[in-house]
């Protein structure tokens, strides 16, 4: 439905986007995930038409939309700080797009109540923007971007300005609402947990390039590059020189990820065990978080279940069992 082809963009000699290719299917939620400055927001703004690309093409249903000005694209966009119009009440904010499209008054009213119900803010029509809480503002902004039945919904860090607890609560609602409205969505965030919760597929971006595109489970279980693995918080990225045997089984990869889900405490006679000394042990309820030094410069961190182990303390020697299915070769 939406297709980005080799989008390139520079600001003052700085290459912000270095050839972005991405496809978003009808009804799909695709998330652009990456650290700040990776170009994800610029990519979104190019799709919206608020920014121009130096080269490349954006197609919607097979037709290029590069020459169509922003206000004729019929998209919806939700900003990080919501960008609600402070001089209009909730109703006028939400119906703004409908008014621009010269929708009849009756149709505006009907749609207003529809979307307010969808986001759970019935009765908020006449509220001033200044009176709303953070979560309410977020819902109004969402309702506003949905109201005109956009061909594509874009969300730029829509939960970024909310506190962590609220964010957790709203992220599930957000997916439900977008799916209920049957929208195709492009979602930008730097928070992997948010991306996991909301996306059908995630495109991880780094320095103006897409590193990997995958569904959330596939991304979690099989990060493809060192950047993606580290960005998702996996620390067991090791040089293959420490594990020539394992490297051999993975067609000689230079860098390996020992996925923490594939590391367990084992015994001397298990296959693929390494002996090591616990250098860090943190009890966190259902599990421990232990770091084991196997050789100088070769440590792994994983999370053994606490009910299986009474005592894991620093200095203790243990056997670490490696599950070969969770040894992943990394590129780059």
């Amino acid at each position, binding site marked *: 439905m939406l297709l980005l082809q080799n989008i390139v963009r520079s600001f003052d000699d700085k290459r912000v986007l270095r050839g972005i290719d991405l496809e978003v299917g009808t009804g799909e939620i695709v998330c652009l995930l990456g650290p700040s400055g990776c170009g994800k927001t610029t990519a979104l703004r190019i799709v919206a038409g608020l920014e121009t690309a130096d080269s490349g093409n954006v197609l919607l249903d097979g037709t290029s939309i590069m020459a169509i000005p922003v*206000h004729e694209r019929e998209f919806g966009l939700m900003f990080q700080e919501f*960008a609600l119009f402070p001089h209009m009440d909730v109703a006028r904010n939400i119906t703004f797009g409908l008014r*621009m499209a010269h929708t009849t008054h009756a149709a505006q009213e009907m749609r207003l109540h529809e979307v307010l119900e969808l986001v759970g803010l019935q009765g908020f029509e006449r509220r001033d923007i200044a009176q709303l809480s953070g979560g309410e503002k977020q819902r109004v902004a969402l309702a506003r971007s949905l109201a005109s039945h956009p061909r594509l919904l874009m969300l730029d860090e829509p939960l970024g300005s909310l506190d962590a607890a609220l964010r957790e609560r709203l992220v599930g609602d957000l997916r439900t609402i977008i799916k209920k409205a049957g929208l195709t969505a492009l979602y930008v965030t730097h928070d992997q947990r948010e991306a996991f919760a909301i996306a059908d597929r995630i495109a991880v971006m780094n320095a103006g390039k897409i590193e990997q595109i995958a569904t959330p489970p596939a991304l979690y279980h099989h990060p493809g590059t060192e950047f993606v693995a580290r960005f998702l918080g996996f620390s067991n990225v090791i040089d293959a020189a420490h594990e020539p045997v394992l490297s051999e089984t993975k067609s000689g990869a230079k860098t390996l990820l020992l996925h923490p889900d594939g590391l367990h405490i084992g015994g001397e006679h298990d296959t693929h065990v390494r002996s090591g000394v616990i250098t860090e042990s943190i009890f966190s309820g259902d599990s421990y978080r232990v770091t084991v030094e196997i050789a100088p410069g070769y440590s792994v961190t994983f999370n053994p279940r606490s009910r299986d182990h009474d005592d894991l303390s620093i200095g203790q020697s243990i056997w670490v069992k490696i599950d070969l299915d969770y040894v992943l070769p990394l590129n780059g």
Partner: protein
Amino acid sequence: MQTKFFTLTQLGILALRALPLIFLALFFFYPLVSIFTVSLAPDGVINLSGFSRLVTSDYYRQTFGFTIFQALLSTALTLAFALPAAFVFARFQFPGKSLLLSLSTLPFVLPTVVVAAAFGALIGENGVVNQLLIGLFRLEDAPIQLEGTLGIILIAHIFYNFSVALRIIGGFWATLDPRMEEAARVLGARGWQLWLYIRLPALSPAIFAAAILVFIFTFTSFGVVLILGGIRFATLEVEIYNQARNIFNLQMAAALSLVQIGFMFILMLVYTRLQRGSSADLRAARQIARPPRGAREKTFVGAILTFMLILQFTPLVALIWRSLTVGNEGFTTRFYGLLSTNVRGSVLFAPPLEAIGNSIAIAITSTLLSVLLGLITAYTLGRAESRAAKWLDPVFMLPLATSAVTLGFGFIIALDEPPLNLRTSILLIPIAHTLVAMPFVVRSVLPAVRSISPNLRGAAQVMGASPFQVWRLIDLPLIARGLIVGAVFAFTVSMGEFGASLFIARPDTPTIPIVIFRLLGQPGAANYGQALAMSTILMLVCGCAFILIERFRSLGMGEF
């Protein structure tokens, strides 16, 4: 099709943006260049006789010396009075505080001729105070003889600048962290040590900024000195006027103007440097004010507030009172009636009431012009991320740093001959007023333009608003307050403008301040009564404008 439309729009925008620059080039820089030419090379060859006379003549040295002397003295006195008041406003909470604070800015919008007339009505030879004293003690002569003295000039200057200093210092003070003082106290500092080591050093950027601003205002004081100082006192401004208008020595006037411009330029430079360190936002202030406690604090606060009320309102009340009681007939509105007639043998060519019509027409034209140009300028400065905006900002403020007399003088030497002969144009005065008023519009609108997040415009665009719709539906409502404040400011500035108008107004189309000035210079109760009546009308007009401004201005001082 699409691309062609966009380039046309862009061309239009470019042309619009150039308008204020063209305006400045024609009506500000061109007259300025003329002043340079006339002072340095009046006949086409370099001739520095004007400057050599400036340096060698005792008279000009004295004029220059007096200008600096009275400005320094006015500044010191203003600060001496404003500092305790700033303390009261920063640290104490009392009923009517915000009302009093906003009323204290009233002098800022009052025309100099009105202030001069008001102080004459209060403490002049036949002023209210003298009348009261004569009545009370059955005296023969007026006990207070301030007319034509330095004293009355200083008092008028304090009246004018008190609130400027109060706002700058008080606003900054309210933002200072009170824990700084508490820490010093815990470490053993007592009363005077707190002032010497903590408060004054912490306040010094604001005090310096206020001092320089007050110095600038009093250094270029024209109307007050001309009307209240009589013939004994002349500042540079007054001397430029004398040379150009009474002695017709244009070269000398131009030389003096050049000195004035140079001096102002340096002062403005210092001021903008300092302002960066002392721009305090009253809204950001943490609430540290509390009601005064104990007899000492209550007396102190009471005394300061009483002083403020007397300083700021007795002259205005005296003006209204005297406009109704001049002469021997007791209470009368005769002088207001006289305004519509052209008294035979009067110095005026038309009934004074006509001047009101002139002033209003001029003020409306100036307001429209300065709003249009100021709006464009605010957008150029507020939306351009380029280095050009940084460089342009001070350029657009330059007319503020140039005294009105210099502007007027520049106009008469530059714009009364080809290639640009506007001597007889009715637009000449509105153009001059626009130069003075435009910076106020820019300063009122610019913060609003800057505060509009680009995402607001982006959101509107994505939802289908065309560029013009974005401006009309998003920008315009959000800058409306600033725009109204700027427009009212422009209107008031134009209504009260005196220095430049005195140079360029034609005798048959005078403005209100000029009529007041001429009437004040004439003997007789009828002339004086009319002058006071006119001043009262002008004061009321500016008072109404002031109420409008305060109504629309969000808290704080704006960007001044």
